[in-house]
């Protein structure tokens, strides 16, 4: 019982001491409150904001559908005309993501609806590891919705098309089979025709050969007959002329003698010299001859007409024989050609039938595969849009990636705590008062203490940098001067803050707790755990002003992307501005401390 009473008494006294000290009261009540409020506020953001995304597409019009999906109030999309420019902006932290649309990225029309197809590469800065998860999640979500939309639409259409195609192929198959049957029938018919032609050709050849054998004699005889007829006709015509002349002469003679008889009346007696000749019988014979000759003449003329007709017939026969020869030759050629063409056609039909068989087989396979395809669901069909994420830093392990954070974290904690403790050690030393009695300006003591802190922090960081170089293969020598300069700036800021605490809060415990608390605020109120882009905008603004965040940003760009400090002048000047402000505050804190000594 006594023990408990003593315990209560001591605890009561301790609490009294705690609550009577303003600084401990601050740490007890306001400290956690501020920490919770600040950190709670910073972490209260729900979504990403102020995200700048660059994109490169050979044909930006074809990427518009995807760009539209990604763009909203919180995401700004910027077009680049070279992928390398886009990646440079990403390295420079101006962009968060760089999108490259594949050269074959296109808009495909499916049933009057345009959908995108192709590959998308998202480049990201994997050194900003905490932001990457948020960005990839956002992009995947947005893209997945769009892809799913396109996929489902496309899949439905594709499945409908497949069904229609299967139906169409079935009908085509039936038609091909019908065509095949017909082709086989045609082939058989052609074979039969060919056989008939061959038979006819065999007969024809036999007769044609006979004809060819006899046709020259026939022709010759025909020509001879024709010639004979020509000669006979000529002779006959001459004979007719002669007979005609003879009839004419005889007619003249007979007329003379008849006239003489009639005129002399002496019964036809003609005194010739001493002799008297009776001419009447002779006249009678001459008249009979004339009649006979006239009849002959008529007969000859009739024969001539016959000869003319025969000659004409003979000419026709010769001509017909010639025509027959030409026709038979043509027929022979035609027969040979027809036979050859028939054979070729049969061969062609054979070849076509083979092709049709092959097509039928292929068609069967296609129908089978399409039939199988229609049994599967739409989800199993590949995405129309494929995407991949490519980190700018390849083959770098996580420890290396986290190195800039580790470095600023170490600088922050070591610098603040060490400088606070060094100041406390100095001002709580019995020798401290004498520093006020020395003919040395106060500034020199503050500066010397600062330099001491810088040296100690530098020693610790040297070890860290050596480990980074040896163990993690981080090339610290590439930008060593810049790296050391940034380390110096950061160390200066945090050392100054620690020294301010040391001079303002003389109680060692409280001062150390306050320093730790401040370092924690710097750490928690940064983008190490959650990226600034997920915080409320005002919180993000202040977090981006956090020297720890600035330092980490500078280290990252220096170590991983070789971006010189000249390109990061804004951040460097901000750190210098902090140094000026905290340096002034340090001098004020020292003056206050001196006044109260």
């Amino acid at each position: 019982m006594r023990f408990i009473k003593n315990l209560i008494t001591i605890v009561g006294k301790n609490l009294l001491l705690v609550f009577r000290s303003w600084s401990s009261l601050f740490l007890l009540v306001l400290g956690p409150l501020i920490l919770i409020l600040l950190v709670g506020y910073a972490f209260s953001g729900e979504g990403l904001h102020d995200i700048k995304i660059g994109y490169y597409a050979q044909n930006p019009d074809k990427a518009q559908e995807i760009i539209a999906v990604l763009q909203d109030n919180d995401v700004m999309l910027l077009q680049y005309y070279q992928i390398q420019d886009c990646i440079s902006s990403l390295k420079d932290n101006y962009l968060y993501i760089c999108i490259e649309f594949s050269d074959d990225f296109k808009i495909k029309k499916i049933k009057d609806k345009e959908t995108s197809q192709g590959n998308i590469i998202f480049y990201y800065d994997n050194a900003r590891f905490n932001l990457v998860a948020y960005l990839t999640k956002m992009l995947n979500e947005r893209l997945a919705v769009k892809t799913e939309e396109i996929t489902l639409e496309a899949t439905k259409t594709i499945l409908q098309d497949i069904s229609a195609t299967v139906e169409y192929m079935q009908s085509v198959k039936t038609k091909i089979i019908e065509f095949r049957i017909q082709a086989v029938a045609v082939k058989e018919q052609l074979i039969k025709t060919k056989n008939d032609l061959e038979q006819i050709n065999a007969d024809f050849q036999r007769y044609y050969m006979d004809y060819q054998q006899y046709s020259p004699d026939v022709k010759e005889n025909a020509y001879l007959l024709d010639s004979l007829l020509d000669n006979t006709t000529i002779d006959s015509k001459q004979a007719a002329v002669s007979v005609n002349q003879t009839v004419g002469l005889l007619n003249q003679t007979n007329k003379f003698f008849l006239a003489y008889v009639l005129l002399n009346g002496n019964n036809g007696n003609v005194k010739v010299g001493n002799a008297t000749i009776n001419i009447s019988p002779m006249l009678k014979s001459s008249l009979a001859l004339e009649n006979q000759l006239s009849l002959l003449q008529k007969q000859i003329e009739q024969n001539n007409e016959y000869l003319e007709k025969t000659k004409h017939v003979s000419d026709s026969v010769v001509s017909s024989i010639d025509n027959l020869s030409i026709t038979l030759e043509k027929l022979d050629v035609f027969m040979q050609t027809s036979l050859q063409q028939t054979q070729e056609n049969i061969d062609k039909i054979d070849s076509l039938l083979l092709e049709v068989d092959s097509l039928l087989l292929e068609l069967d396979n296609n129908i089978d595969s399409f039939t199988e395809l229609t049994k599967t669901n739409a989800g199993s069909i590949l995405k129309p849009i494929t995407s991949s994420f490519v980190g700018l830093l390849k083959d770098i392990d996580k420890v290396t990636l986290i190195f800039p954070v580790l470095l600023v974290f170490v600088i922050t904690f070591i610098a603040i705590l060490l400088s606070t403790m060094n100041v406390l050690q100095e001002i709580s030393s019995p020798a401290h008062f004498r520093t006020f009695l020395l003919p040395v300006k106060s500034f020199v003591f503050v500066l010397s203490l600062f330099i001491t802190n810088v040296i100690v922090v530098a020693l610790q960081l040297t070890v860290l940098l050596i480990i980074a170089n040896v163990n993690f293969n981080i090339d610290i020598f590439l930008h060593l001067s810049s790296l050391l300069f940034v380390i110096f700036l950061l160390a200066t800021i945090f050392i100054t803050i620690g020294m301010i605490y040391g001079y303002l809060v003389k109680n060692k415990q409280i001062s150390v707790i306050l320093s730790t608390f401040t370092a924690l605020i710097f750490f928690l109120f940064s983008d190490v755990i959650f990226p600034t882009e997920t915080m409320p905008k005002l919180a993000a603004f202040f977090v981006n002003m956090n020297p720890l965040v600035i330092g980490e940003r500078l280290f990252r760009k220096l170590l991983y992307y070789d971006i010189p400090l000249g390109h990061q002048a804004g951040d460097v000047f901000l750190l210098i501005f902090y140094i000026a402000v905290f340096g002034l505050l340090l001098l004020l804190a020292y003056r206050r401390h001196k006044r109260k000594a």
Partner: protein
Amino acid sequence: MAHLIQLVAIKKMFKNHAVLDNLEFSVNKGDILGLIGKSGEGKTTFLRVLIGFYKIDAGIIMFEENDITKKTQQILKHVGFCTQDNSFYPELTIEENMRYYGRLYGIKRKVLKERIEELLKLVNLYERKDKFGSDISGGMKRRLDFAIALLHNPAILILDEPTAGLDPVMTKEIWNLIEKINQQGTTVIVSSHELDNLERKCNKIAVLNKGKIAVYTLAEIQRKYKNKPLIDVFEEIVKIN
């Protein structure tokens, strides 16, 4: 005789309370002045004003007829000061402490070496010069503090309760040392509650009371207060004021 240091109409306020009010004070070269006053009366404040550590609200500080009120660095060149606590680094050796402060006083290296030897011999610490400040006795610490305060050869050595917390033997040693330092030509102002030693070692006594100071020679005290012990004199002065 010219005053080595003189304070004229000094006023020092803490918040709205005047700790020193229209204070007049002077000390001559070669004096050992003992400062007495009630606890909390402002002895330490007075001494800190004297060394220029506290800025005064009104008044003038003269050193050898020169106004050095606003020249704090000037005052520090002429004054050596020892607080109630020892003001050196216990983590450093005696010699390292001496060297450190000597350099900050701007003493040249060669001169400093000789000065350190001289002072350490004066305070009888030369043989222990390599000992750490944390490893020496209370009396030695005080002596080291004196030696440090004398490094720049000040005209005045101001000691704020130099024997506080020391045993009688050590106390005697310190007072002998103070006397020795004074004999070497250094003016000493010493604040102490040891009135016997003050009476024995000092030639002047300053009484601080209610923000004002009154300086008496021992002869004046003996004459005025008829050889009364200093404690009685002090009580009387305090009562009167």
